[in-house]
């Protein structure tokens, strides 16, 4: 834009100087004309000579030639003519010409005009007369002198001067102007030049004004742009400052590494935090990329770290944890995550990465792992203990029960009534203890998710036999009825887990017996539809309120704490039944009426294997 401006300025400067030169020339001409005007006084004298010439008797032709010659030289004109008015013809005739193409043979024909044009008002430069003379002289401007009385006129044409000359008219007594001298100068060119100059000036001014306005606008825009740029630069600077503050204030070390086409690494940026992280001076890292992998990374982790660098060179983002050895020998853990990017303009790639100190996290993790190992070991010991407790509690209890039965059955002879009664109490308590111990162990097993379902053929009749062998004594002790029956259509053998079915039955029946004071408990095995079989345990006990059915299967819960005291129990039985039924793919349902009794129904699918066995 500045170049354009300069060019334009040059253009105007040149134009202006050309016009100036022209003006100067015109002014010089004018000055010369003035000078000539002064000289024209001489002309005046010459005109007087004409008068004298006209008055004298000397032949015009004789002196005309000489006279005109003097005029040409004195006035510095190219052509001159001496005209004489011929009254008989009422027109001018050329008496003598000089400078016209054919000298001596005048082709100069003065215009034919009525005499009044010449004489009526001979002092006036009437435009008609002047036009005629101009035409007659064949020149746009000329000098003329006229003596009306003598009828002589002098024309001097092709003056180069453009100064208008005139001599005051000389009037005689009759107020008839006898002589006049005028020089008509065509200044149209000067006018045109002046006008052109004026126009050019005006145009120049207008264009300068336009350009100035444009320049002002451009300048303003430039100023705005400059201000905008300053604003953006300031915003950028502030943003960078904020960014720097953020980077400096976070405790992670941030780096920007360039990987060149030939696989070399070069650090382009490192946050100052690298000093705090490692204890080494900042410059060491910036100057030499390999200082980090070769000096700071723990010797045992260098191999893995170099593999990471290779992965990054192969366009893979990476995240790894390794140890650093600080300048003071302290070992810390860091996590180094690098993202590989290519800006598209260079053959090299960039890695933007963050290195965080994770020493504390590692310590917590190690502690957690240790705690977890301890917990696992404790759990293993608990399971072991549970297994041995299971054996150690059940075996003697079973022996006690066996011996009591032996005595009851009279293996060692008949017993007294009191002895039998006492044995029955021992039996009942031992039986309850056994159920309780079994439930505790089952619950522990369920909680540890260690329940193994071993599916095999199970005869429902055997299940009931086993049930009676343990439960009869409890029923008899409370003087309750305990019956069982199998509906027609139930397969002789069902495919299921015998052990857990036994536990389900014992729990349902012992629970029913516990809450029943009169009447009894009935166990019924049936097949509700061809695809399933079910066990229903019905009692004539106190019943279970509706709102309790929601939590009756929760572990350690009993409906009424007052009842719990009266009926003593762990509250585990039904919970275990529910969990076992779920594990075995069955469903449990409860129907109950308070004061009348309850019925628990457990339903299991009759699976394909069992059907195949028939």
């Amino acid at each position, binding site marked *: 834009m500045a170049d354009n401006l300069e060019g334009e300025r040059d253009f105007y400067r040149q134009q202006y100087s050309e016009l100036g030169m022209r003006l100067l020339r015109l002014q010089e001409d004018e000055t010369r004309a003035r000078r000539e005007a002064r000289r024209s006084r001489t002309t005046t004298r010459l005109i007087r000579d004409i008068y004298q010439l006209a008055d004298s008797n000397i032949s015009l032709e004789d002196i005309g030639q000489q006279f005109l010659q003097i005029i040409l030289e004195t006035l510095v004109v190219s052509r001159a003519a001496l005209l004489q008015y011929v009254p008989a013809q009422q027109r001018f005739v050329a008496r003598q010409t000089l400078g016209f193409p054919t000298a001596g043979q005048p082709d100069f024909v003065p215009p034919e005009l009525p005499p009044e044009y010449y004489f009526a008002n001979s002092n006036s430069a009437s435009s008609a007369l002047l036009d005629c003379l101009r035409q007659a002289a064949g020149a746009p401007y000329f000098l003329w002198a006229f003596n009306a009385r003598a009828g002589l006129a002098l024309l001097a044409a092709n003056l180069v001067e453009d100064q208008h000359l005139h001599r005051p008219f000389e009037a005689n007594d009759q107020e008839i102007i006898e002589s006049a001298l005028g020089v008509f100068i065509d200044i149209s060119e000067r006018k045109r030049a002046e006008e052109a100059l004026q126009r050019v000036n005006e145009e120049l001014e207008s264009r300068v004004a336009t350009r100035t306005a444009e320049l002002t606008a451009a300048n303003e825009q430039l100023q705005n742009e400059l201000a905008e740029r300053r604003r953006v630069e300031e915003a950028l600077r502030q943003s960078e400052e904020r960014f720097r503050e953020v980077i400096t204030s976070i405790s992670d070390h941030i780096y920007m590494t360039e990987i060149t086409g030939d696989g070399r690494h070069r650090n382009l940026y490192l946050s100052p935090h690298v000093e705090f992280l490692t204890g080494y001076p900042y410059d060491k890292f910036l100057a030499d990329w390999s200082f980090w992998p070769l000096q700071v990374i723990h010797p045992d982790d260098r191999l893995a770290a170099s593999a990471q660098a290779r992965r990054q060179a192969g366009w893979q983002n990476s995240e790894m944890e390794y140890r650093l050895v600080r300048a003071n020998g302290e070992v810390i853990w860091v996590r180094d995550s690098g993202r590989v990017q290519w800006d598209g303009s260079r053959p090299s790639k960039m890695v933007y990465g963050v290195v965080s100190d994770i020493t504390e996290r590692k310590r917590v993790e190690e502690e957690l792992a240790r705690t977890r190992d301890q917990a696992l070991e404790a759990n293993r010991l608990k399971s072991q203990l549970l297994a041995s407790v299971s054996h150690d509690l*059940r*075996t*003697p209890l*079973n*022996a006690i*029960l*066996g*011996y009591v*039965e*032996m005595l009851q*059955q*009279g*293996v060692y002879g008949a017993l007294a009534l009191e002895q039998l009664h006492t044995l029955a109490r021992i039996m009942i308590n031992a039986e309850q203890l*056994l159920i309780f111990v079994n439930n505790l162990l089952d619950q522990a097993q369920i909680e540890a998710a260690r329940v193994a379902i*071993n599916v*095999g053929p199970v005869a429902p009749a055997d299940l009931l*036999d*086993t049930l009676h*062998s*343990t439960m009869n004594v409890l029923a008899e002790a409370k003087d309750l009825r305990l019956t069982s029956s199998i509906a027609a259509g139930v397969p002789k053998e069902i495919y299921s887990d*015998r*052990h857990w079915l036994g536990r389900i039955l014992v729990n349902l029946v012992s629970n029913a017996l516990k809450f029943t004071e009169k009447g009894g408990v009935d166990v019924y095995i049936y097949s509700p539809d061809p695809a399933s079989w079910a066990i229903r345990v019905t009692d004539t006990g106190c019943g279970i309120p509706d709102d309790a059915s929601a939590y009756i299967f929760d572990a350690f819960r009993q409906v009424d704490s007052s009842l719990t005291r009266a009926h003593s129990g762990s509250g585990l039985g039904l919970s275990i039944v529910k969990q076992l039924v779920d594990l075995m793919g069955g469903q449990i349902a409860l129907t109950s009426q308070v004061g009348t009794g309850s019925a628990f129904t457990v339903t299991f699918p009759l699976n394909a294997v069992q059907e195949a066995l028939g």
Partner: protein
Amino acid sequence: MKKSCALIIEDDFDLASIFAGALRLAEYEVEILQDGRLALERLAAIVPDVVVLDLHLPHISGKDVLHHIRADRRLADTRVMLATADPLLADSLREEADLVLIKPISFTQMRDLAARLRPRDVFSR
């Protein structure tokens, strides 16, 4: 009527005593052995009607004793009741045994089952 003969091979003293009590009540003459090797020696000499066999035994396992009984034609009529706490092992031997009982086994259970095994012997003879 000649009493049936039962051999109890069980290393747990209490269980052996209780089983013996139950079998006696079911009219068996009972002999108890607590060791697999002794059991095999004794079986070479007698032909029991019923053997109550524990699987975890010192020296020779109950499983081996069972295989031996089944391989001996002399003992073809001997009924074997397995008594074990291990249901998986019991399942694997279900074909060879006449009855499989999963511990705990109550006194009355043993008595009733032993009594159930006896009549067939009586009638089949």
